[in-house]
């Protein structure tokens, strides 16, 4: 029995591999990563932080629509993403910049979506579009994995969602369908302790979110979501179950959203600075940096270099995103059906009449 199958989500402590000081407390659970890969993970975390700060700023300057911060979600999404095959399918909610990027979406596409352009969801990466209706998309991931079993393809799916999403009925239906139909799908619940202003304690009196898996007869594990190594290892184990045996897993990754829910939110209304500072001590990026430093894998010069690289990449993405052609009338009408309906043809012509035939 692997760690996942033997885990008791009602009683077992959260799985942690690296503690807050960057020390490895469970060497037996270290992912099989080269030092190069570990450094790449850190550089990716930095890139994601730079992009997140930039997109947030752009919203403040009126250059971007509402944007959801991802600070605090880096270890979950980069750690898990590094253990997936590029042919596996990722089903994001909306706070998923890191996994979308790691799984092959160009940064400018990710930005383009938040700029309010549908082309931001048009990608060759195996990433489903942003799903704003909370809790609705885990079912899609299950269906996709189910199809992969029917088609005998070694492809698994992972849905990413929050603690709030576990209150929606669709979440239970998704886990249940995954169990019944043997769908190799991982449920990545990012318990960042809040659903906008609503704390985790008001979502459920269940002791853990992982225990909800019991109702569907699938395993549920609790992992330190601010520990990139724990995330990688547990994802690998869950991915093996999914790929080899079409078995689903619920992973409850405990983390914290350091920023506001979105740029429309003011988190000072519902939580204290002290609370945020407490969680800051567990920061996933800082934690990996401490690890790198302890193992002589870090230098000031290297940090400088990856930050500069990140700036260059983010600037390039902004450049492309902001210079993307403006929406045309055709684009609004032409993708509703494979062939336009008579009503759409008429309405499009009518609208063009007002716009000097774009």
């Amino acid at each position, binding site marked *: 029995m692997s760690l996942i199958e033997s885990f008791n989500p009602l009683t077992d402590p959260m799985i942690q591999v690296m503690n807050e000081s960057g020390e490895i407390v469970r060497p037996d659970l270290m992912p099989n990563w080269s030092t190069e890969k570990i450094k790449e993970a850190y550089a990716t975390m930095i890139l994601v932080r730079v992009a997140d700060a930039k997109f947030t700023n752009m919203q403040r300057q009126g250059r971007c629509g509402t944007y959801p911060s991802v600070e605090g979600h880096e270890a979950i999404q980069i750690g898990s993403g590094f253990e997936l095959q590029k042919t596996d399918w990722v089903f994001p909610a909306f706070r998923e910049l890191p996994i979308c990027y790691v799984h092959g979406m160009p940064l400018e596409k990710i930005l383009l979506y938040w700029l309010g352009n*549908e082309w931001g969801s048009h990608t060759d990466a195996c990433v489903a579009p942003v799903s704003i209706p909370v809790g609705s998309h885990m079912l899609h991931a299950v269906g996709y994995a189910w199809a992969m079993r029917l088609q005998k393809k070694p492809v698994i799916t992972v849905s990413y969602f929050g603690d709030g999403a576990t209150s*929606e009925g669709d979440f239970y239906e998704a886990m249940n369908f995954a169990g019944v139909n043997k769908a190799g799908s991982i449920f990545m619940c990012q318990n960042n302790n809040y659903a906008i202003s609503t704390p985790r304690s008001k979502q459920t009196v269940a002791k853990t979110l992982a225990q909800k898996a019991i109702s569907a007869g699938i395993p549920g594990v609790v992992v330190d979501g601010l520990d990139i190594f724990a995330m990688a290892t547990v994802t690998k184990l869950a991915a093996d179950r999914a790929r080899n045996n079409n078995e689903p897993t619920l992973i409850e990754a405990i983390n914290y959203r350091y920023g506001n829910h979105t740029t429309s939110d003011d988190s000072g209304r519902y939580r204290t600075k002290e609370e945020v500072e407490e969680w800051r001590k567990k920061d996933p990026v800082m934690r990996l940096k401490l690890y790198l430093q302890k193992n002589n894998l870090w230098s000031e010069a290297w940090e400088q270099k990856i930050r500069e690289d990140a700036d260059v990449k983010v600037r390039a993405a902004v450049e492309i995103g902001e210079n993307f052609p403006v929406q045309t009338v055709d684009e609004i009408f032409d993708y509703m059906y494979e062939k336009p309906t008579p*009503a759409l043809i008429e309405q499009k012509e009518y609208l063009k009449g007002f716009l000097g035939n774009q």
Partner: protein
Amino acid sequence: MILTIADAISLALKQEMAHDSTVMLMGEDVGVGGGVFRISDGLQKLYGAERVIDTPLAESGIVGTAIGLAMAGMKPICEMQFDGFVYPAFDQIVSHVARMRNRTRGKLTCPLVIRFPYSGGVRALEHHSESPEVYYIHTPGLKVVCPSTPYDAKGLLVAAIRDPDPVIFMEPKKLYRAIKEEVPEEEYTVEIGKARVMIEGSDVTVIGWGAMIPTVLKAQNILAKEGISLEVIDLRTLSPLDTETILESVTKTGRCVIIQEAPRTCGFAAEISALIMEKALFSLQAPVERVTGFDTVMPLLKGEDLYLPNEVRLIDGIRKVMGR
């Protein structure tokens, strides 16, 4: 008091909760956070967490339990966070809320209010800019209300809370803080089912509701300078429809344009147009004109201005029925 629509709704909630202890407000983030539009700011402090409830994130759960609460004599007001997030509760609304009275021949009723912000034009994300009124209008057993002014927002919400039947209360989010007007401090009701002739005129009847009303007023202003006189009707209640006010006006003007933000096909404008054809055809000097959204998904923010009906399109429609 000079209030915005947002203030007027807040005041109505506060006052109704003060004098009726069965009234409760339930929804996502309505308590500690005061609601994402700050409508219920401060209410949990006033009335406690048992009456202003931060629910789990589950719309079906909110409306489904509100049905039981209402059956047992409570007065739940359910806030759905956005127009596009009512759908998880749609089954409860259509299958139970709307049917309880008829199903039990009046023995059990469901007098609850479901409030949600609707309309586009605020540069929001997908599912945050929808105009879904017809789903509810089309469902027998529901009343549907959609104010466009602070005065009506307060009076209609009070009426909705006191109504013996379920009311869908749609709040034009684009207008939440866009207009201010004098609103009486004391409580009053605006009768559900009564439209308002906002401006009297003689050439064309223009019918709108909610978020489209400022567009109608703009067009009215522009055309008045040209000597075209519009009679502006704000429906205020979409179900039951005030057919009398509509027919009286159209009989007088002989021309009618209806503006609607929702997609065109089977929109509410089509129903109003059919009503006029059935009941006032021989008063018409031109076919009824509809100015509407399109049969497309509401575009993301870069495309939303292309979609939204504006005064240019409305004036074009008005000229069409005027034959110029």
